[in-house]
């Protein structure tokens, strides 16, 4: 009985809890309520994933209106996995949050913070679960608006400017998506994704000359790329990540951009089909080129950052590049690598930002020059950071290695029948080379933290409380577990990839 309504409960429960939070007001109670809700949502998405792997895609008609007229929620292998990632990271980060929130956010705004967090989570979950394109836009805006407000809660005054910048860029991106949806609707008269996919086949075949469809596709892909922070549309990201409260950064880095990648996967693979997107339209070459430039440029930029959060933010742009690279291959292997990296990078970067949040709790500044010798005063936190960093580089035994391995193998895999040299092979070399750049920027922290003498302000620091360390180590530990036991995530990613690629035939 409950199983049948899980898809809608997943959204409705957090959505209704957030106004409740405002009514409750008392910070402690709101915190408990939000944490409980997040874990409940996580439990539901686990159950959904289990159901999907047992019986295939689940659909839910809202209000009993059948698709394509009513709004449909649809959970398949891909969306179930992304739901799990988003709700899982959401739950862990909020469990970790209270201590950090107490330090970074004024008491009177804390209720607001928890409410917005829940709303943002709702929006992200909604984007993933909905099967209706316009509904997707609405959820996108729910999550975006609450994210803008969350970022503006940062301590530094530049948080306000960063939030405003993100608001402008994000709204432009969302409006582009809205234009794309409108033009698609104009041609087909449909908004349901599955319905659109069949309606569009006559326009996306070999003789695709319908300009409206082309323009719609262009608007959609640019809009989504903006939300995804694909190079060169990434300008909003470094400031937003750097000046947002630590908890918010950890949450966003683990979920928000990943969900945008999900949207791109849906639009290119489910709705417009790879044949149109990658063969008639040159999206594969464009994405691959931009991804490679993005990886190299942002990794290099990360090396020269002084602020630890900013360094990680640039690294995030580079990692988005890896994900996009896999996506651009239009093969089962490529999409598997992409989805796997979404999963692994959510854990790694989430864990890294959580460790960074522990540092921010004890130190006045996160500039590298103020972190000298922190490994002696906060050994557990610094070790967690270092392990996460190894995952970022892609050292074997961490989950980062597994997804990079899949990515490299699928890059090398194209064109082997003909034994010819292709751009993909060059891309494989560049991907490996970029790991070296990652090694350099990760090493900068390790060097500073473990091989330098502590400064005065570092001497005063003490280890972060267990309440924050435990969730951090839980996430960091998972990156190690999935590094030596990669079967589960790999199977889930393969299942997800076949869910999107399989639907193209």
């Amino acid at each position, binding site marked *: 009985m409950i199983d049948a309504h899980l898809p809608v409960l997943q959204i409705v429960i957090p959505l209704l809890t957030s106004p409740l939070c405002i009514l409750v007001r008392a910070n402690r109670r709101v915190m408990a309520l939000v944490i409980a809700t997040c874990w409940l949502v996580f439990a539901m998405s686990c159950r959904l994933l289990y159901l999907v792997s047992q019986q295939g895609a689940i659909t839910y008609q809202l209000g009993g209106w059948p698709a394509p007229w009513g709004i449909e929620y649809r959970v398949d292998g891909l969306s179930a996995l992304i739901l799990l990632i988003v709700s899982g990271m959401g739950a862990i980060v909020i469990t970790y949050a209270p201590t950090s929130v107490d330090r970074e956010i004024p008491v009177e705004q804390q209720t607001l913070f928890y409410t917005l967090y829940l709303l943002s989570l709702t929006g992200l979950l909604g984007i993933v679960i909905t099967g209706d394109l316009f509904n997707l836009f609405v959820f996108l805006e729910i999550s975006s608006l609450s994210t803008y407000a969350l970022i503006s809660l940062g301590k530094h005054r530049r948080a306000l400017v960063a939030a405003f910048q993100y608001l402008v860029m994000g709204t432009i991106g969302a409006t582009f998506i809205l234009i794309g949806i409108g033009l698609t609707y104009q041609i087909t008269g449909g908004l349901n994704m599955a319905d659109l996919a069949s309606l569009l086949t006559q326009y996306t075949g070999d003789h695709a000359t319908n300009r409206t469809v082309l323009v719609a596709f262009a608007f959609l892909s640019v809009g989504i790329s903006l939300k995804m922070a694909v190079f060169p549309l990434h300008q909003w990201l470094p400031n937003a990540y750097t000046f947002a409260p630590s908890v918010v950064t950890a949450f966003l880095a683990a979920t928000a951009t990943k969900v945008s990648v999900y949207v791109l996967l849906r639009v290119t693979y489910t709705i417009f089909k790879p044949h149109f997107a990658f063969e008639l339209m040159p999206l594969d070459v464009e994405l691959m080129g931009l991804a490679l430039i993005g990886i190299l440029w942002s990794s290099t930029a990360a090396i020269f950052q002084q602020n630890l959060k900013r360094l990680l933010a640039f690294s995030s742009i580079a990692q988005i590049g890896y994900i996009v690279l896999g996506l651009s291959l239009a093969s089962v292997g490529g999409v598997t690598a992409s989805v796997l990296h979404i999963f692994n990078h959510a854990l790694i970067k989430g864990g890294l930002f959580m460790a960074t949040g522990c540092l921010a709790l004890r130190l006045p500044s996160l500039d590298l020059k103020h972190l000298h010798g922190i490994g002696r005063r906060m050994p557990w936190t610094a070790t967690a950071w270092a392990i996460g960093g190894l995952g970022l580089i892609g050292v074997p*035994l961490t989950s980062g290695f597994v997804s990079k391995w899949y990515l*490299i193998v699928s890059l090398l*895999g194209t064109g082997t029948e003909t*034994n010819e040299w292709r751009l993909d092979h060059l891309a494989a070399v560049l991907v*490996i080379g970029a790991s*070296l750049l990652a090694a350099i920027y990760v090493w900068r922290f390790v060097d500073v933290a473990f091989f330098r003498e502590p400064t005065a302000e570092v001497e005063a620091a003490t280890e972060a409380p267990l309440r924050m360390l435990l969730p951090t180590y839980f996430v960091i530990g998972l990156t190690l577990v999935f590094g030596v036991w990669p079967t589960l995530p790999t199977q889930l990613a393969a299942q997800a990839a076949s869910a999107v690629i399989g639907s193209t035939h």
Partner: protein
Amino acid sequence: MSAETRILLLLVLPLLTSGLIVLFGRRPNLREAVHLSLGSVVFGIAASLAGPVFHGLRPELQLGELVPGFAISFRFEPLGMLFALVASGLWVVTTAYAMGYMRAHHEANQTRFFACFPIAICAALGAAGAANLLTLFLFYELMTLSTFPLVTHHGDEAAQQGGRTYLTYLLGSSIMFFLLAIAWTWQVSGRLDFVAGGILSSAFHEGRISRGGVTLLVGLYAYGVGKAALMPLHRWLPAAMVAPTPVSALLHAVAVVKVGVFTILKIMIYTFGASLLNETGASLWLMYVAGASVLLASWVAMHQDNLKARLAYSTVSQLAYITLGAALATPAAWVGAAMHIAMHAVGKITLFFCAGAIYVATHRTQVSQLRGLGRQMPWTMAAFLLGSLSIIGVPPCGGLWSKWMLATGAVEAHQYPLMAVLMISSLLNIAYLLPIPIAAFFAAPEDAADSHGHASHDSVHQDAQQHGEQHGGEAPLLCVVPPCLTAIGGLLLFFLADKVFHVLSNLPDVISN
């Protein structure tokens, strides 16, 4: 105890040792006792495995997966077993030596220093037993990371600089080339395990990789394994000499560099296979690059006045011998290369031990300061002489046999110029090694004031008074006995060489192709 358990213990015990060392950090004697005793146990286990392996058994062990389908798995064959024996055996000797050295120097952070040692040994043992390329790669990287704190141990600017070079070269080459080569190998052959006769030849015959592709792949492996210090990627080795001497001894004469050449040898034998290499000529260029590396490094070594730098360049040259043997791809050459791993390890560790003992006793670091030292430190300089003879390959030292086999291999492959390279290089070895013990025994000693002047330049940790105390005698016993032991080991290997040869050459999976 089953073979599986023993393999697991080989890997776990060093890590346990490391943990205990950290635990007992405040009680140095207990710490060192644990280190020595567990080290001996590890060597004992390796020795107990060696018998069955040399008689044809292949013990295996599987742990978790790295990538689905690729387990972290181990399978000891004679080549790996030999390497494991050498590494674990010399570990015990080095530990004893390091205790003497570090205490005589009152070094700081000794616990961190000793805790990193066993991890590096774990990496060496894991690499020795690795059953596939990914496992090998994993332990190869572990080796780099665990030895970095040892290289930068002093923490001053020079150590930082050396450490940076060390890390850049080793991590850079391995990620950039080695990993790429592994991925490529997997892509064309669909497997990564080590198989007699190689895994790439069928891929070549089915046209999935071209002749040029194989040649490029050989290059990616040869330079991806930066620890083999093939020129021009050798710079990290002299840079790593900023480390305390026990580190240079164990890691940069035995564990680290030998993991490099061992990896190359193993890849040539079990990934490419002799028939593919001979058929395509893919490793022809590598022979000549290695040959050039042998000569050039010897030439550079001759012009180094710093003793450790001279030994480092000598190592670069000797490693190129092994790479050369691996590239020759004939049975004799491979056996010779494998033997040279052991022979050179014993010889070079002796020389480094002596260099460290000299530094402890007199604080001299330059070759030109060693004249007449034979009267003051007869045992040390005698060991140095024997070590030099072993490296040069003069009877009655083990080094003779490996060089002999390598030369035979060059003849087998009809590469006569390379045979000439080996000859000339032996002459160069004489020219840069032998003058040191000869001058020490037969030249008149420098006057004390002069050496004192030098010492104040080089000394960081030792004050003048202590210098005065130790002047005029041997280094502490713990610094003198180990080099004598390894020097005798070098002599023994001369007589045991036929056993080693037997073990290596009777193996169908080394010789057959």
